[in-house]
Structures are given as structure tokens and as C-alpha cells.
């Protein structure tokens, strides 16, 4: 199994390569008139060298901490992405997927419930109560107290 360091190093080498290729047309011109390509290319080169040094390090494989982290980090990622999808209309025309705008209270409720998956021993009843009340209260404060243009329930109220 590749070590964590090697996985990260390969990813960073790929990033450096992509940057170099992407910035190729933005020519360096000359040092007298350094163009937009100078800094990114310098950094890509430096990143590539550091990544190779990292790859050369001999370290242990991914450890148990990785398994402990995977569940919470994926759950938090899913919760935030679900919030982003649900708060405004989201469409993937090529796949025929359309998610109507649910507004902040509903999007927040979904996000809170999904984030509960991050913890193995979640207390679902208190979380459900929190997920119902907190996003609603927070949305009302944002809209009416702070004047933020937050949609409350477009599918119900029209705003």
C-alpha cells in the first residue's frame, strides 16, 4: 500500500505539472519584463522538487488515524455540499437532475442531520430538535435582523 507521503507527493507532482502546462502559453517573456507566468512556474518547479523530496522519505503506511478521520471528514464534506446544493436551485442539465431551491432553513436542517453521521454515538433526537430550530432561528436573524438576502422558503413563501 502506498504510504500517505507518497500519495500526497504524487498528487502534488500532478498539481505542479498541471500548473506548468496551463501557464505555458502565458510566457515568461524575459526577466526584464516578467509576465504572468513567472511566479506560477517558479512555484510549480519548487513544488515539484519538494514533492520528490517527500516521495523519497520512507515512512509508515496510512495508519489507524486515517480510518478515524475518514468518517467525520466525509460526513462534514457531505453536509456542507448538501447545504450548497439545497440552498439555491441546482441543476445538472446533462443528467437531467434539478434540485429546487429549498432556502436556508431547510438546507441547514439537512446539513445538520447529515453532519450527525460524523459522530459514531450521535444522539439523534436532540440533534433533530436542534436541526429543526437552529437553522430557522439563524435564518430569521440573518434576514430580518441583519438584512441579509437569505431565502427562507422559496418553495412555500416565494422568498
Amino acid at each position, binding site marked *: 500500500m502506498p504510504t500517505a507521503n507518497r500519495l500526497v507527493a504524487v498528487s502534488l507532482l500532478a498539481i505542479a505539472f498541471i*500548473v506548468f502546462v496551463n*501557464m505555458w502559453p502565458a510566457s515568461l517573456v524575459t526577466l526584464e519584463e*516578467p509576465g504572468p507566468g513567472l*511566479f*506560477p512556474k517558479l512555484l510549480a518547479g519548487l*513544488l515539484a522538487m519538494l*514533492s520528490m523530496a517527500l516521495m523519497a522519505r520512507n515512512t509508515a503506511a496510512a495508519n489507524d488515524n486515517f480510518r478515524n478521520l475518514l468518517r467525520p*471528514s466525509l460526513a462534514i464534506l457531505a*453536509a456542507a455540499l448538501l447545504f450548497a446544493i439545497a*440552498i439555491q436551485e441546482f441543476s445538472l442539465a446533462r443528467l437531467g437532475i434539478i434540485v429546487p431551491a429549498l432556502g436556508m432553513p431547510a438546507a441547514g436542517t439537512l446539513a445538520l442531520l447529515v453532519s450527525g453521521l460524523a459522530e459514531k454515538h450521535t444522539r439523534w433526537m436532540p440533534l433533530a430538535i436542534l436541526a429543526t430550530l437552529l437553522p430557522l432561528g439563524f435564518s430569521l436573524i440573518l434576514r430580518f435582523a441583519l438584512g441579509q438576502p437569505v431565502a427562507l422558503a422559496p418553495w412555500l413563501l416565494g422568498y
Partner: protein
Amino acid sequence: MELISHIELGFWVALTPENLGLCLLGCLIGTLVGVLPGIGPGATIAMLLPVTFGLPAAGAMVMLAGIYYGAQYGGSTTAILVGIPGEATSVVTVFDGQAMARLGKAGVALGIAAIASFSAGTIATLLIALLAAPISAFALEFGPVETFALLLLGLSSVVALTQGSLLKAAIMAVLGLLLSTIGTDPMQPQLRLTFGWTEIADGLNFVVVAMGLFGLAEIGSSLANREDRTTSSRQIGRLLPSGSELRQSLAPILRGTFLGSALGFLPGNGAVLAPFASYALEKNLAHERDRFGKGAIEGVAGPEAANNAAAQAAFVPLLTLGIPPNAIMALMMGAMVLHGIVPGPRVLVEQPELFWGMVASMWIGNLMLLVINLPLVGLWVRLLRVDYKLLYPAIVLFCCAGVYTLGSSPADVAQMAVFGFLGTMLSAYGFEPAPLLLGLVLGRPLEEKLRQSLELSQGSVSGFLASPIAMVLLGLSAIVVTASVLRSMQKLPSRPATLA
């Protein structure tokens, strides 16, 4: 005389009802954050950045600064009562603070921690007032070459002095610099590394990245590394130290203050190093060293003074040179930029009310923390029992909603989610987020000064060597990096992990 008029201006600004209220709010939120598990001042400042948009610049900075040094107070409360440091800067306070709590002297420990922090804050604020004008005046003479060298010194010092692997810190810094190049070129109307995504044509939003790396990422790490937070069941007891306890603490407080001020000023994690250095110093100077670890009051007084002095002193390079010495200051720098303030020596000249208002509010904030924290210690003890299983979903909501309100853009929330995930996974393997954030913040000015320097010297590197100041600064960068490389090659024991 000029100093007195500046301080007078500062108090005029800081004592307005609005700024007093914001200072109090920042101190209370900071203490709360320091007490509560799984959320640090970095995550809180990142989450509140969108809220500060509606505030005047001075008020916003006063509130955010209050959160930072308020968290130092809160962190020491959990260190003493629970035996778990609320913040990295409170690790050392656990050694003797918890021991004092087990001896029934928790109140005295809390009291001396508060008094030491206030004393150190007062002296450190005075040092800031004395040093700021001369440092800024010196920095105003800098041209592009000197500024480039200074920024490089700041970034390389933070990388070199970050705990853990030097190589990984360097990688994160370079990655941060690379991320700063995304968007429109600073000197020509050309898009770079956007891959056709119009959402990032203006570059990555600093707030989005910061909330991902410090808000969401911290949740993942906290859930994976849960701690038992049983409070000490003994009575807190009297809060005020006796006369003899105060006399015993006086010298450690003074030594801690000056040590913390010196370390906090330097780029790197001076605020984390300072209490360790103070503890080691006090233990070495003590007549009976074996009292330490068993409830020696000097073991609380010195480190608490050191960590608060370092926290205040960290503002000096930010406010005078525009160099954030740590991740929290990088967030503060981001907040200044969001309010249209260019951090650096010009702040003192062009916006003296902002600068001196912040300095004065630091002292007022320390006074507020001394007065309110001790009577509220019972409330903080109850808050220690807040179930993290209900706290962290609320943090997720605040992060998502906060980022969304920046520009009503779900793409920003998605970006934050990705940075949060990457931040959690990377930090698990020793890739700390602080150098990345510093690279992101310093990248654009670093590039601008580099390109200006090359244009002025017509492409010749000798332009950098022609300036004695630039040569000294570049030489210092080389020394700092070389010393760190040698240290890592000798495989010295690493210090405890950084918590932002």
C-alpha cells in the same frame, strides 16, 4: 509627547460605546471559545469574518483581537479545572494549575492566571506603543526589493519555526503561494489557473479557504481525537491570591512578560513557545525545583504572563510591517484587507485612529477579562459540560451560512467543504494549514514586489544585492532556513502540535 497624544487618540477611539461593546463581545466570545472543546480562536475568527463586513474597520479589528487574547484566558480555565489545555498556549498551565486544583486551590490558580495575564497584557501593550512608530518609520523607507526580502523572511521564518516537519511546512507554504496566483494577474489583465471557472476569476476567497481549513477541518480532527473533560470535583475556593502568593508570583510574571513579548514578536509560533520557555526558566531559577508539577504557583504565573504577552506582541509585525507572524495574524490581516486596509507601515501614518484604537482596546480588553472572568468562572465551568455532539453540527451550520452570505454563492460553500476535507486529511499527516494560509495571504504582495524588483533592476538579480537592507533580510532568511534544516537533520524531539 507624541506617544502620549497617540495613546490619547487611541483611548478616544476605543472608549466609544460601539467599540467598547465590540471589545466586550470579542472578549466574551474569545473566553467562550477558549473554554469550549473542539473550537479555537482561529476557527472563530474565520467564522466571524463575514459578520465583520457590516462593522466599521476599527470595531471589527477590536472585536477579532478580543477573541484572540480572550481565548488565552479561556484556555487557562480548562487547563486548571479540567487538566486539558483549552488552547495550545495553555499546555504548560496544566502541569501546576491542575495540581493546584487538586489541592483545593483552583480559585487561586485561576486568580493568579488572570492577574498575570492582565499584567503582561498591560506591559506588552505599552511595548507595542513604544516600538510601533520607530519600526513603521523604518519600514516606510522600504522599496520593492526590501519589501520582497521582508515578506520572504516572514514566510520562511514561519515555515522554519513551525512545529513538525520542515519539508511538509514548506510544501504547504508553496501550495498557499500557488493558490494565491489563481485568478486575475495582479499586473496584467490575464486570467491564470481558472480552467474556465468564472467563479474563481477574482481568485480564491480568503475567508472561504480560512473557514474550510480552520472551521470545518478542526471539527474532523476534534471528533477523531476525543478527550474526557471531567471537571475537578473539588471546590474552587477563594479566587484572590494572598499577599505572599502575589509576592511569589511577581518576578515570574515580569520575566514571563518580557520573554513572551520577545518571542511573540518573532515570526513563527512564538505564542506557543513562550509559555514553555517561561516554565523552563522558572523551574531553572527556583530554589526547590521539585515543587514544579505539584502546584508551584510560579508554574502558572510565568507561563500565563508569557502567553498573553506573546499574543499581544504578535500584533507588532502585522500592524507595523504587514507581516503576519502566525495563522491567527494571517486571519487578522485578511480581515484588514476585507475592510480595504493595506496592512503595513502606512497604517500608522494613514489610519492612526485604527492603529492606536486597537492598541488602546487591547489594554481595555485585558481589563475587561480580569474583571468579568473571575466572577463568571462558575458559568464557564457549566459550559465545559456542553456536549460536543450538539456543538459541532452548529459549527457546521455557522460555517456554511457564513460563507454563503459572503456572495450568495453555493460555489463558495462547496469550495469551503473541499478545503475542509483536505485540511482534515492533510493535518492528520503533519501538513499543518497555517503555512498554507500564510502563503495565500502573502502570495500576491510577494509576487508584485518580485516583479517590480526585476523590472527596476532590468532583470538582474544584482538588484537584490545592491540593497544592504535586502541583503540582511535575505541573509536572515537563509540562516533561519539553514538552521531549521540542520535541526531536522539532527532529529531533535518535536514540540507539541499547533492548534490555531
